[in-house]
């Protein structure tokens, strides 16, 4: 379980360039949840995820992972990092080993696992991310962009964390590559009983996967709730510089014109199910 209690973080504290990145954030994420975190650049979302695995330490408030307070001196931050796997933006830049397999083993070996255990985990993780077996002996630098991304995610997954945090995992991928990765992430969440935090600019991506969404704005939690609760507040989302899925905008327009359509539509599937009977009625 992840708990943030009134957490604040300030960059370059005290200097002329002081910037408050997080300002009194409190939230709780339960085991097994799939959470989407959205917010524009500078909203504090990347600061927040770095606080969650102890890469940054809060100036105020408490970050608690499974009843361990990260500010507590007794807490071993390395153990926390194995528990809360963080996959940073453009993670392919972390690849460094001779082979893909060795690279994926880096995390597990740091945990103190034996070579054979690490390799077993690495193979499993590679499989989960959809990386073909025959690529494992290749140099990570010979892979395609999408494959590198998977290898990097596998490197985190192989540590078998309880929580997986992904920062913009689809950035720079083409639509097919994006869909494949998202599909795999959903698969991991289900099969490995993972808590997943997906940080993204793309409302469509988050809408497709998350059970619950946190919207960050200027270092605070602006709103939270199920996708349909959040996207029902599309006017406010746009006010704070975020977009809503195109299909939500279509539904909003229809509702404004007097069509009986509930707020918070965010997938084409939902829109289809609601609109088809309305259109059929007209046709008869």
């Amino acid at each position: 379980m992840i708990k943030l209690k009134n957490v604040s973080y300030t960059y370059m504290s005290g200097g002329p360039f002081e910037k408050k990145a997080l300002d009194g954030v409190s939230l709780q994420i339960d085991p097994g949840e799939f959470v989407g975190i959205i917010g524009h650049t500078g909203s504090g979302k990347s600061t927040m995820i770095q606080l969650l695995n102890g890469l940054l330490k809060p100036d105020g408030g408490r970050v608690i992972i499974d009843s361990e307070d990260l500010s507590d001196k007794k807490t071993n931050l390395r153990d926390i990092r194995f528990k809360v796997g963080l996959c940073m933006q453009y993670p392919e830049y972390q690849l460094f080993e001779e082979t893909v397999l060795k690279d994926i083993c880096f995390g597990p070996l740091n945990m103190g696992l034996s070579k054979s255990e690490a390799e077993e985990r690495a193979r499993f993780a590679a499989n989960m991310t959809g990386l073909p077996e025959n690529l494992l002996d290749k140099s990570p630098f010979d892979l395609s962009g999408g494959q590198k991304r998977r290898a990097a995610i596998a490197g985190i997954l192989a540590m078998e964390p309880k929580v997986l945090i992904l920062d913009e995992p689809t950035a720079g991928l083409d639509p097919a590559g994006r869909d494949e990765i998202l599909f795999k992430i959903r698969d991991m969440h289900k099969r490995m009983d993972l808590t997943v935090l997906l940080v993204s600019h793309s409302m469509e991506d988050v809408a497709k996967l998350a059970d619950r969404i946190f919207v960050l704005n200027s270092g605070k939690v602006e709103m939270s709730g199920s996708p349909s609760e959040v996207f029902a507040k599309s006017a406010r989302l746009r006010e704070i510089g975020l977009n809503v899925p195109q299909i939500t905008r279509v539904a909003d327009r229809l509702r404004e014109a007097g069509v009986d359509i509930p707020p918070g539509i965010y997938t084409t599937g939902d829109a289809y199910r609601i609109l088809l009977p309305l259109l059929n009625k007209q046709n008869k």
Partner: protein
Amino acid sequence: MLKDITLGQYFPGNSFIHRLDPRTKILIIIAYVVMVFLVQNFIGYAALALFFAVCTAISKLSPKYLIRGLKPILVFIVFTGIFNLFLTSGEVIWSMGFLKITREGVRFAAFMVLRLIFLILGTSLLTLTTSPIALTDGMERLLSPFKKIHLPAHEIAMMMTIALRFIPTLLDETDKIMKAQSARGASIDSGNIFARAKAMVPILIPLFISAFRRADELATAMECRCYRGGEGRTRLYELRFGRVDLLGWVYTAALLAVIIILNITFGSF
């Protein structure tokens, strides 16, 4: 953590010092360095200090930035002072056990410390009031007469510009890679020297690969913008000597004369 490093930090301004042609500034700094070593007595240093104080005042720069420049080498300055204080032979004026201080030692230590401080202050003033690009430009122009002996003045300047341009980018990147590897349990700041050196591998390899990729992309981008070496290039800012430069020269020459006169009059003590 790496963002605290400031390299060639420049404070824009429009003072007399800022407006000096970078070539003038580079040559004045060379003259200044020569003078720092030429000075043989404390009156000479007083003159130098006065010169420097006037320059700082004209530049409208807060002295705290200059003093901040001394911080990183403070240990070195102190070490130099102590080393010279205790290890110079001569007339002993104080001793305790095997430690002894000589009259010459005091004088020599003071001189060395002053020299270091003056050197750092001078070069700090130069980089604080001159944009890196103006500096490289000035360097290129000063070196260009040596093209005849096949010194690649333009290439050297271009390399320096690109290095300056990419230092912040690569520092950012190092920070990111360090975080990414820490997230995989790499322990960068613990263990003995050997363990730490080994822990650098997962950081250095990605950094080098990224730097090569950046260099490759930058080369293509430069080609696209019709780069073909220094031949036939014009500049947005052509360097031109003006009145301020003349004043700068006169001022420096005057100081040089003063120091030589002081040396002759007072000798070294």
